[in-house]
């Protein structure tokens, strides 16, 4: 099984995007984190790392979707520092469409890190309608 992690500057946005992805993604393992270490707008590397280790437990890899610049950078740092036992990848994709596509792909019995990552990346095409 492949896990999906949603990282937004806003905890509410992350949870909302997680809810939408869960609606389509069935049984996929989806976690959502957001907010800076004080709960304001931003991201916390420690929160991202905690979510990664929760997802790493029982999955074969984690695909991470992040919203704006610093969320992407903090997600990359958390992935670099993550347990080497599980493969994690940050995908360059629109966060909502990417999370939704990744969740659907992750719910497939044949899902691999590559198929879920590709599905998330392809979401950019849906986002712009091209």
């Amino acid at each position, binding site marked *: 099984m492949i896990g999906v992690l949603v990282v937004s500057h806003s905890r509410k946005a992350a949870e909302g995007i997680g809810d939408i992805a869960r609606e389509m993604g069935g049984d996929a393992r989806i976690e959502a984190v957001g907010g800076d*270490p004080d709960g304001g707008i931003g991201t916390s590397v420690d929160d991202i790392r905690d979510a990664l280790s929760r997802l790493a437990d029982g999955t074969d890899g984690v695909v991470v979707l992040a919203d704006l610049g610093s969320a992407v950078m903090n997600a990359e740092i958390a992935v670099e520092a993550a347990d080497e036992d599980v493969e994690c990848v940050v995908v360059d994709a629109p966060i909502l469409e990417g999370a939704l596509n990744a969740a659907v792909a992750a719910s497939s019995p044949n899902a691999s890190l590559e198929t879920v990552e590709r599905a998330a990346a392809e979401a950019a095409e849906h986002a712009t309608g091209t």
Partner: protein
Amino acid sequence: MASRETEREAILEAVDRIAARIESEKQHLADLDSAIGDADHGANLDRGFQAVVEKIEQKDDAETQELVKTAGMALISKVGGASGPLYGGSCMHASQELEDGITAETTVAFAEAYLEKLRDRGGAEVGDKTMVDALTPAVHTYKKSIEVDELPPLEALAKAVDAAERGVEFTVPLKAAKGRASYLGWRSVGHQDPGATSTLLILEELLATAQVYLDGNVDVTAASPTIPDEDVENQGE
């Protein structure tokens, strides 16, 4: 530089000074950031450097390299915005160059590794209206001053700070190409970049620390890692 203990004192003094300076200029950084960003640069850095001071104080038996790495990790954990991975990640990466402690050679290597990681992680080049605009001329000036002009490190650092200051001024007329400010497009023109500004503040405090430890007039073993309160109050005026 001399003993491990002296280096530790210098690092403590540097982080104390930087944390105090960032705290006193928190509002200034917030004002700069509110013009072209999300107004949180001052608060984020303040939270980060308070954590750095706390973590470093706890490490009373660590080598220089470990102390600098710890500072980077604290920034990564506590900042919450882009300056966390940019300042903290670069600091952690560059700390590898300080295996032999703080010397003219290792500080040049540190500065270069820091800049390289910063550009790599943030994807910004000179002219994008970011901290890279202050740091790039500073690092190039420092390296040239040490390696080509063979200036003493203190003089080289002073020249680097001058270069960073010009870099900060250079950001004012630019149109932002990276970070949150880039969403504003032309509206970002005419505003000084907050990241370049905080980079300059940090370099100024490193220079102030170097002046204590490298001018030869101070008995380094007697130097206190804590700056007097009146110095803190006078900063930012």
